[in-house]
């Protein structure tokens, strides 16, 4: 009984300790959601400051230097510390349940991945209080970032390095989980699309993050240890950074957008009450996007001077990506067509996503034409384009996914009424902000510019854009209010709250038992829960008798390992400064903490524990109590 009593009610401190040491994928998902949500708000505040500064010509709301720091931190925070962790939150919360697994393959590594990301993000954001944030743009091109004074870029390089380790671990963990831990009958071609996109995105993480790691190490060595990889005067080449960054950076946008596609591919069939149209072509398109994603990075560098042959190859490869993406768009439309449609909040986000994302895709193909890109490059047209794909694709996916999976993660249902208000405000604000920026760009407004002059035809467009941003902010605030109200009321909605859940995650009692599946389910086809429901059953057919379940123990070690690297990063950063003799000892102490914790983990046997069959039988009838 001890193992189940293990999750009984506890005080506040006990809950905090539980989350600090948890290795349960469902709780790690909540940690990712909290941390990612926090950084999303930080990045959002930075976005608001950018739009306030640019609302009127000749504004001096922030200084030029501070503006550079804000745009850099807005981009870096939103990509690395908000979008990725929020997607990881859904991957953690949903993917193991969708394939019928009791946890991810390496629960300890999962926790380690979270804490590395968190401390990396914390380190990066501490730059605001410790002498200035990075100011060379989120791309941090080497000539500029090597010339940047102060420690801003060092915070960028070290912080992203630490959080990148975490992301890489998370990706590998998901890959192993999907390859090895699918329930009986869950073949690759029966996996829900969200699991498929998690799989492909994780593979992209596996191959895309090492180039970033190498590039960041080179930058760290150039700035902190006197090497000259990017320094032309010392025989280096500044273009190397651009290549490393974009070999990582382009797959990165697919790492972000594919899971969002996956979330939409779950929402459409659920609320159209039809199976996903063209499932196998969706899988094919996902894998193809993954492959093509690695062959197009130089389209970010058309104006660098790669030569006409390289530009032509990368232009054609880039345009080719429109084909699998088009397959997906048509499949989604065909899924809705003829369905018995319910316009719930997630469905609204999904339907709004299609035209929004297509607009971003079309401008993408425009920029893929290399000669035209010479005109668009570094103007607001580019800014409009990537916000259309990132906000129109990923953020709409995250917001839709938050409403869709909220009952799965928390057992409560967000208010549909407030959700619809958020949706209308956010979507209106989004198009208001970014649509006009296409034209600002075509009229010649450069990207990353601190301010602009009156009388150049840019005033109206920028003001409209800033007003749109305010709409988005209000929408997000209402969503936060919605979350607070829902959690305060705490009305538990029970199993299959949308009534039309199709995949395994909805077959579980709510809240999900900490061991997920008492008996592993037997998967008899695509949309396994739907198949059972169509045969008049309310639960999955089990694939095994009730038996002991092996569970991992909680561990504080992931926190300590990550904390050690966090401490060491300060030492590495300050060691070159005059009169900071404490830096080297700090570096050594930090590394000792990390390696000591790793050694402890290696030496101490931790075999986990078993939930015994008798306790599981006792647990029956109570719907898998907590």
């Amino acid at each position, binding site marked *: 009984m001890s193992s189940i009593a293990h999750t009984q009610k506890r005080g506040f401190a006990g809950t905090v300790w539980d989350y600090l040491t948890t290795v349960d994928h469902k709780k790690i998902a909540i940690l990712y959601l909290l941390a990612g949500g926090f950084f999303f708000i930080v990045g959002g505040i930075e976005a608001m400051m950018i739009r306030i500064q640019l609302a009127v010509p000749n504004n001096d709301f922030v200084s030029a230097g501070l503006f550079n720091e804000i745009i850099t931190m807005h981009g870096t925070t939103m990509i690395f510390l908000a979008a990725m962790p929020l997607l990881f939150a859904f991957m953690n919360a949903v993917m193991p349940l969708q394939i019928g697994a009791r946890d991810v393959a390496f629960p300890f590594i999962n926790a380690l991945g979270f804490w590395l990301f968190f401390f990396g993000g914390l380190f990066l954001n501490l730059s605001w209080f410790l002498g200035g944030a990075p100011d060379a743009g989120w791309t941090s091109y080497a000539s500029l970032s090597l010339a940047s004074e102060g420690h801003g870029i060092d915070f960028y390089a070290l912080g992203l390095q630490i959080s990148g380790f975490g992301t890489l671990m998370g990706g590998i963990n998901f*890959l192993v989980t999907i*390859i090895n831990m699918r329930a009986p009958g869950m073949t690759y071609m029966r996996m829900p699309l969200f699991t498929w996109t998690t799989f492909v995105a994780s*593979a992209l993480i*596996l*191959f895309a993050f090492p*180039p970033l790691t190498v590039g960041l190490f080179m930058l760290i060595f150039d700035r902190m240890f006197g090497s000259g990889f990017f320094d032309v005067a010392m025989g280096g*080449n500044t*273009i*190397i950074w651009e*290549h490393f960054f974009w*070999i990582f950076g382009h797959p990165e946008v697919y790492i972000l957008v594919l899971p969002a596609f996956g979330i939409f591919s779950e929402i459409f069939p659920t609320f159209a009450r039809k199976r996903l149209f063209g499932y196998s072509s969706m899988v094919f398109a996902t894998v193809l996007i993954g*492959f093509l994603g*690695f*062959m197009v990075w*130089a389209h970010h560098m058309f104006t660098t001077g*790669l*030569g006409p042959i*390289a530009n032509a190859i990368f232009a054609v490869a880039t345009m080719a990506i429109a084909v699998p993406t088009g397959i997906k768009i048509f499949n989604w439309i065909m899924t809705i067509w003829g369905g018995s449609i319910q316009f719930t909040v997630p469905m609204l986000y999904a339907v709004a996503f299609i035209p929004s994302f297509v607009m971003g895709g079309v401008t993408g193909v425009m920029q893929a034409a290399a000669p035209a890109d010479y005109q668009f490059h570094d103007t607001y047209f580019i800014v409009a384009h990537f916000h259309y794909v990132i906000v129109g694709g990923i953020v709409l996916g995250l917001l839709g996914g938050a409403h869709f999976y909220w009952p799965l993660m928390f057992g409560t249902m967000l208010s549909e009424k407030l959700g619809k208000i958020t949706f209308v405000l956010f979507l209106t604000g989004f198009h208001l902000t970014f649509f006009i920026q296409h034209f600002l760009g075509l009229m010649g407004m450069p990207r990353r510019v601190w301010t602009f002059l009156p009388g150049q035809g840019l005033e109206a467009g920028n003001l409209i854009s800033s007003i749109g941003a305010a709409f988005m902010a209000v929408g997000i605030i209402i969503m936060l209010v919605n979350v607070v109200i829902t959690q305060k009321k705490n009305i538990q909605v029970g199993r299959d709250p949308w009534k039309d859940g199709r995949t395994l995650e909805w077959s579980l009692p709510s809240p999900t038992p900490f061991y997920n599946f008492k008996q592993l389910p037997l998967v008899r086809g695509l949309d396994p829960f739907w198949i059972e429901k169509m045969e008049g059953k309310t639960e999955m057919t089990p694939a095994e008798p009730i038996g002991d379940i092996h569970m991992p123990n909680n561990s504080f070690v992931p926190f300590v390992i990550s904390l050690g690297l966090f401490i060491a990063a300060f030492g590495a950063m300050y060691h070159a400064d005059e009169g900071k003799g404490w830096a080297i000892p700090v570096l050594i102490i930090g590394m000792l903490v990390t390696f000591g914790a790793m050694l402890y983990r290696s030496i101490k046997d931790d075999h986990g524990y078993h939930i015994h069959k008798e306790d599981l039988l006792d647990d029956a009838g109570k719907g898998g109590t907590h």
Partner: protein
Amino acid sequence: MANLHPNSGDPKVTYEYRRKKHAEEMRMQVVTFTMMIFFTVIAFAAVGAGFSKWFIVPFVLLLAVVQVIFQLYYFMHMSHKGHEAPQLFMYSGMLVAFLTILTFVTIIWW
């Protein structure tokens, strides 16, 4: 069928079947091992014979690639069933690495 390879410990796989498989594998290993040694000798011979470096370098690299494939498939059992995922990821990784190297030797100017 997935775990019907000789090391599965599956009782359904009969002793006779295993014996036959082992013998077959042993033969392949001896053959490939001999060929690998032979390739190494050829590689040294090619360098020693003093051909143009435009011939030697690609030729030795080709022999090396063949040897790596032998090593993977006949000594590290990648030819067995159940290695599809590792194969997929190895080849994808090689493709990405190859593209990166190709970029760095072609379109980065010095």
